[in-house]
């Protein structure tokens, strides 16, 4: 046992016994002939001692002291030890039994709690590690594609400078720009996630107005895809909920962009916000091809992307980042198909959880 722990044990034991004795004296003078109450006070003190100290020693030690105190101070003849009183051995045994019993129980309770805490910590570490590994794998896979494009296009521009027509040059530079924009999008997503990892998977929440976040996401979407068709609406009533607005904006942007790029439909996207009693839910609804049933379960994992085709590059990372962000907010993100396409939705709690301030 560590030295400081020993000292704490000693302090707790001594102070509890002193308090019990003081209380017993008070009782003794206020209510005469009340031996049973005094024994109860000591038993209470014993239980407290056992609960807040480690090991069996303090409990055993204090039960002996308690028995001696009761005998010496509070039973006739006062201030004399007399173990021949009728029934006294039984009191002694009782106190010992109570102490032993409670100290065994609390000791095993404490050990169990410690074990559970350790297991939880290991599990969450493993979970985080897995998330990180998945992300890294998906990232390196997805970053390589546009980089290859950019390097190839710029090399062919430089090597064939004399022979390319203006329109060919134009198209090469346009491809470079497209790929570079895509890379930037990816990097911004990744940067968002570092905001979470910096603070050990907790986000820093401030009260933000929902409509401002939605409109900011719309603004960025229009900058990126100028002819995007989105019908967006927010509730009439102003909603202010705790969140990291930069991250939620990123989630909305990812979902909207995915809907536009991957739904394979020209119909306008619907984006709206529902206000429930406990949560606020954001919806992004497209009218396209929908999401295959078997993909709906792992679409937010990011893992489903490694090794698959490049046909929807980037969607994997974007969505797994969305999930990371929403989970860190204590919210839920999901996808479902409706009659004419897919609907992504995520909800955020209106109130802060007790540990967030």
């Amino acid at each position, binding site marked *: 046992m560590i030295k400081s722990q020993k000292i704490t044990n000693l302090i707790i034991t001594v102070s509890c016994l002193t308090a019990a004795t003081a209380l017993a004296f008070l009782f003794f003078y206020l209510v005469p002939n009340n031996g049973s109450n005094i024994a109860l006070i000591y038993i209470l003190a014993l239980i407290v001692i056992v609960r807040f100290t480690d090991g069996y020693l303090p409990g055993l030690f204090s039960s002996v002291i308690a028995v001696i105190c009761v005998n010496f101070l509070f039973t006739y003849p006062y201030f004399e030890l007399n173990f021949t009183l009728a029934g006294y051995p039984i009191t002694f045994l009782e106190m010992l039994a109570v102490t032993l019993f409670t100290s065994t129980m609390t000791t095993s309770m404490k050990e169990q709690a410690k074990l559970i805490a350790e297991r939880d910590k290991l599990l969450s570490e493993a979970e985080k590690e897995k998330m990180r590994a998945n992300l890294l794998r998906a990232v390196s896979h997805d970053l390589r594609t546009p980089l290859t494009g950019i390097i190839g296009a710029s090399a062919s521009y430089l090597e064939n400078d004399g022979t390319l027509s203006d329109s060919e040059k134009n198209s090469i530079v346009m491809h470079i720009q497209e790929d570079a924009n895509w890379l930037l999008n990816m990097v*911004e997503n990744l940067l968002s996630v570092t*905001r979470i990892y910096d603070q050990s998977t907790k986000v820093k929440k401030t009260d933000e107005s929902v409509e401002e*976040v939605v409109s900011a996401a719309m603004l960025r979407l229009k900058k990126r895809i100028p002819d995007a068709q989105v019908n*967006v609406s*927010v509730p009439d009533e102003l909603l202010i909920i705790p969140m990291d*607005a930069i991250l939620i904006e990123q989630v909305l942007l990812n979902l909207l962009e995915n809907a536009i790029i991957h739904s394979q439909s020209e119909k306008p996207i619907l984006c709206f916000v529902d206000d429930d009693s406990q949560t606020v839910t954001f919806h992004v609804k497209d009218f396209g091809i929908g999401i295959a049933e078997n993909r709906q379960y792992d679409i937010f994992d990011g893992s489903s992307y490694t090794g698959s085709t490049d046909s929807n590059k980037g969607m994997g990372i974007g969505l797994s980042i969305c999930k990371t962000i929403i989970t860190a907010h204590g919210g839920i993100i999901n996808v479902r198909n409706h009659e004419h396409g897919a609907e992504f939705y995520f909800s955020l709690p209106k109130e802060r959880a007790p540990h967030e301030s």
Partner: protein
Amino acid sequence: MNPKKQLLLIEDERNICNFIMTTLKSNDYKVSYALNAQTGLSLAASQCPDLILLDLGLPDMDGIDVIKKIRSWSNLPIIVISARTQEKEKVEALDAGADDYITKPFGTSELMARIRTALRRTASGSGSQSPQNRYTAGSLVIDYEKHIITIDGEIVHFTQIEYKILTFLSQNAGRVITYDSLISHVWGPFADSNNRILRVNMANIRRKLENNPADPHYIFTEIGIGYRMIDNENQ
């Protein structure tokens, strides 16, 4: 035609520096550049440029300190160049006296618009007050003399506070206004910096002003920083 405006670019990335210089020159500005803060500060003092473009991530000095140093002797417009996720840094820069910021990466048109807005502030003379007595954007008109706001020619009623917010934003149209400066302008310097009441007023304004509050045309939110009102068409 006015004489060419002299701009100073302080940016340590040579590639970005080149691209901005090319853009500015092709838009008829004279540009000089510095690759670090020390050179930048001495160039700013010797050339007295009309505007400074300042990257916040310089190798030899904190960008905020550069702004403070320049502000200690000059009121010339400063536009800060910064990355997207560092909204705290942007607010700090604006509070230290920067006029505006632009987020990397930016398009040419965006950069030019910011520069025009910032240059206009000095051209109009005294501080942030615009001598214009009228603000026009799309179907929105604010008449400062008559205290009247109309949309499509119809008068819309705003509360005192809402009107104050709108005047402040529109007189600084095109510039981002931080939550704190808006609050201290409208409610006074000792107002609580809790911006909930500001959010509520902005929501009310939005509902009176915009067709769709989720997709505004006049006042834009810059998340974590403040608001920006669309440019005045009168100028």
